[in-house]
Structure formats: structure tokens, C-alpha cells
């Protein structure tokens, strides 16, 4: 299995780039950022949703994407995991050229974990079976080992005792934590989160944010779309503000206190 490792001319970015250490068996070590978008364009029919989006995520970094509804945040995330195929530009994840037509999807998806607003748990499987499914059939782990992994990630999200429950028996917050655990179980190099708390009550939101904060503290590379400004400001290394399909402003948490562009100011005034 050979990846097209295409070292693009390096671009400076404000994040901390750590060189990749151990790495998984399948992926060649590569020095660049974990995720790199370069001039990405994407349209749905006549509706141009992404208009030249570029940004990078370094190893261990946690980046929050904010922006008004319809600004293209979800689409950007979906493009990174190749749920959408981009029209132009390039996306690289852990050295895998996502925009290549011959991209090894399985490999890509082993590197990337993604969690959506709607938890998308498999309703006919128990919490543990949800987690085991991909471990057994994609990673081909033996039963005992897979079980160990499942227990570990469930503990990580604080839901060991719910292993035998079915999704419908859980609260929204619990379901979302299971969804995170399910992604984590695959040991991805980077986790994408798309408004994972938008459908939850404030109280349940807390549980989920806490899990994400723990993850960030544990060194996971994370890219999350969120409306929780306070959380983004406190936890994220950098914040990307998207507006009308473009990266409009990028900066550390403090940028929310002093928006440079009127658009971000308007957005913050409305949202908070």
C-alpha cells in the first residue's frame, strides 16, 4: 500500500508543527502538518460553498472553526474525510492526498475520526457492539483485544457501565459520548467534530465538552466546528472564522475579544 506523499512547498503557519514520531504501521512518517487544505473549492450545483479555503492543522493542535450558518464549515470538514469530493485545490491528511481520485479511502478513514451533530449510532447494536463493529471488521482485531479497546474508550468518555445498553436507552449527551468513543477506538491521528453539542441541553453539553477537553489535553489533534464560543476560546489553540466559504480570520482565542474584521464582530455580537 503506497501513499502518494507529495511534499508541497511548505507554507508558514502559526501553529506548532511537531515531527511525527512512532506512527501507525501503514502510514509513512511525514514531516508536514496532519491536515492541510490548499485553495479548496467546492460547489453544490450553482451554489459555491467553499471558495478557496486554506489552512493547516499541526500535530497535537486543537483548532475550532466558527462561522455563521451556511458559511461552509460542515462542508470543509466533510471534504477532509472525503465525504464530499472537492472541485479544485488539494487536501492532505497524514500524507494522504485526499483529492486524488485513487485515494485509499480505508487508509484515510483509519487516520481520521469524525463525529457529527446527529450521533448516528447504529440503533440495533449495543453501545459496545457499536464500538466493536469497526474494530473487528476493519482493524480485524481478535475478539478479546477489541473488547479491551472498547472498554478503554468507554472509560475515557465515562460510560463503562453502559456497554450493554442500546442507544435509545441513553440520553443525547451519552449517545454523543458513545459516538466519540466509537471514533476514538480506531485510534485516529486526527478527530473532526461537527457541532457535536448543538442538539443537546446545556447540562448534557457540559458532559460532552468535558470529554473533548480531556482529549485535547491528552494531545489528540482535533478540528472542531462549534458554536460554543466560550469553550472554543478556552480550549482551542487557534480559531478559524469562516465567512461565505472563505477563511476570514485566524488567530488565538483572544481574537474573539478583538475582532479585526467587521464580519467577525457582527457574528460575535449576534451569537453571544
Amino acid at each position, binding site marked *: 500500500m503506497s501513499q502518494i506523499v507529495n511534499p508541497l512547498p511548505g507554507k508558514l503557519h502559526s501553529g506548532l508543527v511537531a515531527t511525527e514520531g512512532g506512527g501507525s504501521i501503514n502510514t509513512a512518517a511525514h514531516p508536514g502538518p496532519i491536515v492541510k487544505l490548499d485553495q479548496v473549492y467546492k460547489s453544490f450545483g450553482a451554489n459555491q460553498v467553499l471558495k478557496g479555503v486554506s489552512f493547516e492543522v499541526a500535530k497535537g493542535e486543537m483548532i475550532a472553526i466558527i462561522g455563521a450558518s451556511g458559511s461552509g464549515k460542515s462542508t470543509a470538514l466533510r471534504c477532509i474525510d472525503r*465525504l464530499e469530493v472537492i472541485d479544485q485545490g488539494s487536501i492532505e491528511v497524514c500524507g494522504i492526498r485526499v483529492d486524488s481520485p485513487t485515494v485509499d479511502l480505508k487508509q484515510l*478513514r483509519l487516520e481520521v475520526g469524525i463525529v457529527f451533530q446527529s450521533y448516528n449510532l447504529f*440503533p440495533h447494536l449495543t453501545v459496545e457492539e457499536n464500538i466493536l463493529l469497526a474494530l473487528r471488521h476493519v482493524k480485524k482485531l481478535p475478539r478479546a483485544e477489541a473488547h479491551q479497546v472498547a472498554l478503554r474508550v468507554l472509560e475515557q468518555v465515562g460510560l463503562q457501565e453502559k456497554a450493554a445498553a442500546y442507544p435509545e436507552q441513553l440520553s443525547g449527551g451519552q449517545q454523543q459520548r458513545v459516538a466519540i468513543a466509537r471514533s476514538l477506538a480506531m485510534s485516529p491521528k486526527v478527530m473532526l467534530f461537527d457541532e457535536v453539542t448543538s442538539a443537546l441541553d446545556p447540562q448534557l453539553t457540559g458532559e460532552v465538552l468535558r470529554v473533548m477537553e480531556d482529549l485535547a489535553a491528552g494531545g489528540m489533534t482535533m478540528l472542531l466546528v462549534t458554536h460554543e464560543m466560550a469553550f472554543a476560546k478556552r480550549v482551542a489553540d487557534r480559531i478559524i472564522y469562516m465567512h461565505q466559504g472563505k477563511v476570514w480570520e485566524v488567530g488565538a482565542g483572544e481574537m474573539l475579544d478583538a475582532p479585526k474584521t467587521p464580519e467577525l464582530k457582527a457574528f460575535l455580537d449576534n451569537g453571544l
Partner: protein
Amino acid sequence: MKYALDFSTLLPYWPVFLNGAWLTLKMTAVAVVVGVAVGTLVAFAKRSQIQPLSRICAAYIEVVRNTPFLVQIFLLYFGLASIGIRMPTFAAAVLAMVINIAAYAAEIIRAGLESVPKGQIEAAECLGLSKWRIGWHVMLQPSIEKVYPALTSQFLLMMQASAMASQISAEELTAIANTVQSDTFRSLETYIVVAALYLALSLVIKLVTHVLGEYLFRRRRVVRQTAARNSRQAVRPPTASIARQGGAA
């Protein structure tokens, strides 16, 4: 004229009746198992991107669902034979039943597949599961669970439809009835006995499918038990959805 029902004449025939019932059950079982398998493939094929394939499947489903089973049997039994394809009665009858039930099952299962949220399929893709695994674990299993009641009532209709196989010399329950009544000249009694046997068979099938459902779909059982255990609070009765209507006539 006063007619007195007399079932005693039929007593010596009970092994014959049981044989017929057994054959009916056997034909139904084989047809159901093969038919659901074929129907599943057809359901996926109808959803496929390959236009000709999905068109053919759609045509197959519509033709079968809009013509009588009796005509299908005649067409298959005599029609195929007259163009040189011959098969034993049992095979012909079961084949007709498979062709019939597969179309109904395909339509039912397709409805189930369509109700799987797109997000779940995407979530499975993102976990790196292959197309086949997604089809089996994420799409088919919950679909079957959802449409299981509709499927089982289709099984019952199929069992009834097997009565028409008597017309092509399959010695199932109805054919037995025709023979016995001509032996005993007790037609009304014979058909009453046979009606009771069919009723018993359908109860057996209901029981078997229920037990099978409880076994296969653990979720329903677990959730129900936990709900009963956890909250003794009265729950409002669920609103019944409209009975899905199928049929094999």
C-alpha cells in the same frame, strides 16, 4: 333438505391430511428462506446506480405484484415446459412461490433500507467499513428488524397462496382435500378440516416467526425488559401505525 355434518368418515384420512400439511409447510419454508434471500438482493439491486439493473428489478417487482399468483403458476409450469424447461412439481411450485415472495420481500426490504438515515451510512464509511459490511451490518440488519412484521405477514399470505399449487399437481393440503372429498363424498367436512389445518399452520408460523424475532432482534427484548424494570411509571400507549398491506393473491 337437512344436511348433517359427519366428520367420522374423514378419520381414516388423518395421516394423508398431515402429509399434505407437512408438504405445505415445507414448501412455504423453502420459499420463504430462498425468497427473502433473493428479495434482499433485488432490493439492493433496485437501489443500485446501474440504471438497467435497477429498471429490470423494478419491472420484475411490478409485474409480479400486479398479476395473480395462479396465472404465474400456470405460466411457469406449462409455459416453461413448452419451451423446453422441465422440472418436478415440487420444484416448479416452490420456484413460483420464490419468484412471487421475492418481489414482495424486495419491496418491503427496500422500504426498510430507505429508512436507514444517511448519516448512519456515512458514519460507517467514516469508520472505514467496506461497502459490503455497511450493506450487511448498518443497512440490512436494522432494516430487517424494522420490516420484520410486514415480512412475516407476507409469509402467512405465501403459505395460503401455496394452496394454488394444487392446480399443478403438487400434493399439498388443498390437493389432498380435493382427493379426499372425491373419495369420501364429504366435501364440506373435508374443506372445514382443511381450513382448520391451515389455521393451525398459520398459528405455527406466527409462533415460529415470533420466537425467531425475539431471538434475532435482541434489542426489542432488552429495551422492553429494561423499561419494565426501571420505570413502573405507566407509559402512554403507542399509536398504531397503519397496517402495511401486502398480498400474494
